[in-house]
């Protein structure tokens, strides 16, 4: 295998490692809320610096590869995609931290009502994250298009969650601080789904050389 191919593989492995770390952070942050496990939430917050450090490391390696190897065609698209999706991944890690922070606060309060919408939003969001990352690993497939389509479901559920909580707040203003935090969590998850959509769009660019960002959302 040529040295450049080895370097590209090493870069891909680092991106995959970052993907795994972010997936775990999102999963644990949601568990820490739904299972009211503040220790797990603290773990998520504690581990975030590892995600940040790997993001920086990947960016540095991408810049080095561009400078030293002057990549073309699919190599160039792979490296630019890696650079862009690591930014999305790092932001997803930050959002997992935000969820964990709200979980710690909410876990100290009595439960307003059992979590129904948030686990649903979390399930779809985590599927989107997993599929977008699978698409990055596997390359060309229909997966990224499916991820993009599912973003609307998350948006709709987030609005539904918000409306329900507003209803609760109107009926009982005392629960406003708790309810607002629950709307935040749904919003964080909705943003994570947006980042998964960004990744799916970049994977389509990586595979086909076609930028579909900010054009038709479900073009195939």
């Amino acid at each position, binding site marked *: 295998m040529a040295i450049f191919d080895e370097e590209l593989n090493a870069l891909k492995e680092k991106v995959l490692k970052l993907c795994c770390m972010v997936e775990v952070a999102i999963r644990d942050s949601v568990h820490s809320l739904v299972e009211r496990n503040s220790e797990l939430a603290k773990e998520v917050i504690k581990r975030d610096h590892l995600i940040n450090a790997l993001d920086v490391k990947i960016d540095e390696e991408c810049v080095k590869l561009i400078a030293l190897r002057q990549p073309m*065609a699919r190599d160039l698209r792979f490296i630019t995609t890696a650079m862009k999706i690591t930014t999305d991944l790092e932001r997803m890690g930050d959002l997992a931290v935000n969820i964990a922070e709200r979980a710690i606060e909410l876990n100290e309060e009595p439960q307003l009502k059992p979590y129904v919408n948030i686990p649903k939003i979390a399930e779809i969001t985590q599927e989107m994250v997993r599929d977008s990352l699978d698409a990055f690993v596997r390359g060309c497939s229909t997966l990224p298009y499916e991820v993009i389509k599912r973003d609307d479901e998350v948006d709709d559920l987030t609005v539904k969650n918000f409306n329900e909580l507003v209803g609760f707040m109107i009926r009982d203003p005392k629960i406003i601080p708790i309810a607002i935090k629950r709307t935040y969590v749904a919003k964080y998850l909705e943003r994570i789904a947006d980042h998964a959509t960004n990744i799916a769009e970049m994977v389509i660019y990586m595979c086909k050389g076609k930028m579909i960002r900010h054009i038709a959302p479900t073009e195939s």
Partner: protein
Amino acid sequence: MVEGLVNNNIFEMKDFSIYYGHFLAVKKVTLNIGVNKITAIIGPSGCGKSTLLRSLNRMNDLIMNSWVEGHSLFKGVDIYQKDTDVIELRKRVGMVFQKPNPFPNSVYENVAFGPKIRGIRKKSQLDEIVENALVRADLWKEVRDKLNESGMSLSGGQMQRLCIARSLAQEPEVLLFDEPTSALDPISTANIENLLQELRKTVTIVIVTHNMQQAARVSDYTAFMYLGEMIEFGNTDTLFVNPHNKLTEEYITGRFG
């Protein structure tokens, strides 16, 4: 036939083949060269790119046993028809080679050589042509005080620009560059590349280069050749970011063979 641009193409090759004896060096190439555009031809050694370039002003005529098939139209007129004035063609389609090759003469005489052959004798007119060509080749400021010194005394980059000025003095419509910077350092290379961008405003440029980054930097269109065939031709941006052909992809990503 009356000359004229066809679809803004200054050259149109249709099923154009070049042979050296029985050897088919360029196979049925169909290629259009846009006027006032920079077209790069890339490909591995021996793919026929220089042969194709040299055919554009019939430099291959100088090689024994070379012959062609198909059509190569310059402004709509086939340059390989019997009554083509090859000297006139080479005046209109100039060439700059890999290794700077100034005449063993003064800077001034190098540039004035072509116009003198054309019969221009008036000193003031020659002075104007020489200055104008040297300015266009971005060399005037460096040589204005040493016009009578030997062209061979200049640096490599300056000599190459002197050769460009020598071609420009003939007021060509097309300039062919065969690996023009492969013998130059990075600064001289950058100077020539900047110069190409200036020249394209008035001259159509076709450049053969082994340096893919150079093709990507300077050209509007790129053609990729392999074993005498035109594998892919297109917009330079597209060809280097998202080539359509697998062979092109393998070549430009360095995974060839």
